[in-house]
């Protein structure tokens, strides 16, 4: 069954996008990325170390020619900083597909949707393909799609909380109304959360903390890979109808 995952006209093999933060070291990052089967990772933009000239870089371990780098504006609290970050990211290697994340509160890490919308409008005009981290609100999601977002990325729960999907109904509504891919971003804690996101009909899931903070990140990366595949297949297969009472699986006829 043909089931392509396409974002901004680019085809991806895996519906799982993995974040590269919080790992013990670059080797563990690279191993987890491989185990997850992903072909797109989020990356942050930060100052280079000017004192340690031999410091290894992420690119030494994960080749951007093999795995798509999705520059992210994590840590930005206003449009100015987010735009500056993504313009620098584009200069680094021509990256046009980016993830916009403008935070509004240090405690909840909820997005500032006013700044997010403002930034999306500017980035789209500048030719960026913007995947937008947003609140799980259908009205805001619709607005983002209308102004040209390439993907809508509603949170399942606060970033790094591992609480799982808190508002299934809204995620379902967002998916139903969207013509661009909907990717659940943030809040996934375990494999079943990823499966639920996919069973709700989402096009993909973005996971970082749940893998990096697992006791065994490599094993969790693999679990997430299968969880996303299972959820997608389950969604496409179409679940059975729920019944209030039992319904025997074996025929009643010819009982001995």
């Amino acid at each position, binding site marked *: 069954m043909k089931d392509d995952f396409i974002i901004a006209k680019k085809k991806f093999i895996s519906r799982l996008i993995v974040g590269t933060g919080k790992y013990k070291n670059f080797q563990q990052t690279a191993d987890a990325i491989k185990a997850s089967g992903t072909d797109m990772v989020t990356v942050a933009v930060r100052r280079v170390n000017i004192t340690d000239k031999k410091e290894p*870089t992420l690119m030494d371990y994960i080749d951007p020619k093999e795995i798509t780098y999705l520059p992210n504006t994590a840590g930005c609290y206003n449009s100015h900083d987010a735009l500056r970050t993504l313009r*620098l990211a584009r200069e680094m290697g021509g990256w046009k597909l980016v993830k916009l994340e403008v935070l509004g509160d240090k405690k909840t890490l909820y997005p500032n949707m006013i700044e997010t919308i403002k930034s999306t409008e500017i980035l789209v005009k500048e030719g960026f393909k913007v995947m937008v981290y947003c609140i799980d609100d259908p009205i805001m999601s619709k607005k983002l799609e209308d102004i040209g977002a390439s993907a809508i990325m509603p949170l399942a729960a606060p*970033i790094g909380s591992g609480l799982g999907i808190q508002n299934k109904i809204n995620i379902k509504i967002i998916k139903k109304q969207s013509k661009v891919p909907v990717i659940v971003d943030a809040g996934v804690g375990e494999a079943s959360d990823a499966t639920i996101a996919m069973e709700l009909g989402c096009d993909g899931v973005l996971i970082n903390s749940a893998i990096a903070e697992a006791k065994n990140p490599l094993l969790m990366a693999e679990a997430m890979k299968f969880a996303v595949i299972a959820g997608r297949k389950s969604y496409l297969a179409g679940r059975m109808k729920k019944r209030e009472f039992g319904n025997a699986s074996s025929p009643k006829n010819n009982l001995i």
Partner: protein
Amino acid sequence: MNNLKKIKIQLNGKRYQIKKGCSLKELLRILKKNNNKVAIEMNGEIADKKKYNKIFLKKSDKIEIVQFIGGG
């Protein structure tokens, strides 16, 4: 005497001394940073990668050199 030929710039938020007339390309070479793995902002404006050898540092320039690191 040698000191006269040096200028002070601000590099990634820190004071940094470098010889006068140094280009961005040379600065990267001194810092042992790969041209293809970084982006440079000069006084708030993004420097064009293709022109690193033609952009020269002046006194008090504010330079930011960034790269990709692990992030969510």
